[in-house]
C-alpha cells in the first residue's frame, strides 16, 4: 500500500515548481501520477518520465509499495 501524500511530496521535491497529483487506479499499488513541471520543457517524454520515476524509484517495483506507476507529464513555463 503506497502513501499517496508521501509520493506526491517526493515528486514535488524532485521537481521544484511542479504541480503533482497522484491517484490510486487499483488496489492501492497501481498509481497514476499527473505531473506538470517547468523542468520538462524541451525534453522527450522518456526523459520526462525518468525524472518522475527517479523521484520514487526506491518505492517502485516488485515487493515494494508501488507496483505500477502510470505517468502523464506536461511541460509548464
Amino acid at each position, binding site marked *: 500500500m503506497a502513501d499517496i501524500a508521501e509520493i506526491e511530496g517526493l515528486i514535488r521535491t524532485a521537481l521544484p515548481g511542479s504541480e503533482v497529483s497522484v491517484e490510486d487506479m487499483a488496489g492501492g499499488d497501481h498509481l497514476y501520477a499527473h505531473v506538470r513541471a517547468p523542468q520538462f520543457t524541451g525534453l522527450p517524454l*522518456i526523459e520526462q*518520465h*525518468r525524472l518522475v520515476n527517479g523521484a520514487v524509484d526506491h518505492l517502485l517495483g516488485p515487493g515494494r509499495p508501488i507496483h505500477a506507476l502510470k505517468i502523464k507529464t506536461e511541460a509548464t513555463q
Partner: protein
Amino acid sequence: MIITEDEIRQEVLNSIAQNRVMLFMKGTPEMPRCGFSMQTVACLKDTGAEFAAMDILPDPRIRQLLSEHSGWPTIPQLFVDGQLVGGCDIVTELHETGQLKELVNAAA
C-alpha cells in the same frame, strides 16, 4: 547449447543497432503475451511502419541485460534509431498525438 550473458547482450545491442524501429516485448507481434505489449504493437502497426521485435520471455537474462542498457525497468521498450522512445504509456501518448508516425517514418 549454452548461451552466455555476453552473447545475449551482444544480440540485444545488435538488434537495437541494426533495426531502425526495434521493439522488445512479451510474446510476438502476432501473439503478444501481455496487454501492454499488445497495445504497443497495435500503435506501431497503425503507423504502417516496418518494425522488428524480440520476445524477452524465453530467457530472463534478456530483460535484465536490456534494462541494464536502457535504464528502463519495464517491458515493452521501443527503440528508434538506437534511442529508447519509451514503453506502452509513452508510445500510446505519441500515437494519440500523431508523433509516433512521424518518428518511425522519419529518415534516420
